[in-house]
């Protein structure tokens, strides 16, 4: 996995600062930006996929059976999934310490 910028010395830089590891943002945890956490109620879910479409962080995984799972490693807690869910199957709750 890629090193963070503070771990890299100038001797390790590529010519032209080319990044030769595409998609290495996947190692970057954005889940710790979150102040609210989504709570998913599978019983209410109608498997429409609206949350999967609108999640700006690709943090909603569509499962084989059509239900979904939040990936809290990446979820920034914006709440779009809860707002747009037509069946009110997702609620946002405050993160605790």
């Amino acid at each position, binding site marked *: 996995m890629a090193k963070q910028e503070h771990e890299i010395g100038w001797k390790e830089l590529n010519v032209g600062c080319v990044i030769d590891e*595409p998609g290495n*943002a996947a190692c*970057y945890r*954005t889940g710790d*930006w979150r102040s609210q956490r989504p709570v998913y109620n599978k019983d209410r879910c109608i498997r429409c996929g609206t949350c999967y479409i609108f999640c700006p962080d*690709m943090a909603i995984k569509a499962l084989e059976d059509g239900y979904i799972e939040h990936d809290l490693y990446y979820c920034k807690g914006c709440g779009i999934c809860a*707002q747009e869910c037509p069946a009110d199957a997702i609620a946002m709750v405050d993160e605790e310490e």
Partner: protein
Amino acid sequence: MSAKTTILTLPEEELVHPGHRACAGCGLSILYRFGLKALGRDTILVVPPSCLTVLQGLYPIAATQLPCLNVTFASTAAAATGIIAALKVRGKEDITVAAWAGDGGTSDIGIQALSGACERGDNFIFICYDNEAYMNTGVQRSGTTPQGVITTTTPIHGKPQQKKDMPAIMAAHTISYVATGSAAYPLDVYDKIKKAKTIEGPKYIHLHTPCPPGWGFDTRYTVKVGRLAVETGLFDLYEIEHGVFRLTGASKKLLGKERKPVAAYFETQTRFRALTRARISAIQRQVDEKWAGYEA
């Protein structure tokens, strides 16, 4: 036109990775994800300084799987021209070249290079995501900021000038394809970019992109605000294919129906707090006139 894409026919492969550094609730990341799905793997991206550069990651992080050239603000379309020329020499003409810039990089700083590339007829797609100000440097007004909007450089009475109608400027270049889209309708954007890929010559796509910190609304309302802009008739979804204009998707459905009042859109965002009642009625009249033209 081919059948509309639905969630069931959308390709599953993600070319943007999670862990990107856009703000929570960013409209651009929705668009970027669907845009890259539509562009596909055989694409070279050109990106000037913009929120997109931040989204993709600060060095040495990259959120995208595609080769991406970060260029100076004014040279986006010129760099795309250079890549097309280089691909031609290498005999690789089946690769799509897409430039993806913000509203500042398109309508203010990048317009000269873009206008030149369109006049030359270079075969590339230019995508402008319009969040209506210079967002990543701290919400300074741009050419596409609507009239009356509070930004950090128009802090008291809002921006005095009108919003620049960028898609109309591009349509005046008589290029083969001009389209608009919104982050609230990502599947519509997907279909339009797919279509643009099949057309020869310069293509321009203008995307309305709600920005929670810049526009002043809660992160959860990104899609709602984007949808309201379309439902009130302020931002229209259309395409101009070889000079033929037609409304598409949600805007087409509004024809002959009653639209929501524009005040419903303004109320959702703090950036419109300087608008007076008289100003709002004037904007409502402008929108009504525009739609009377569509319906005629």
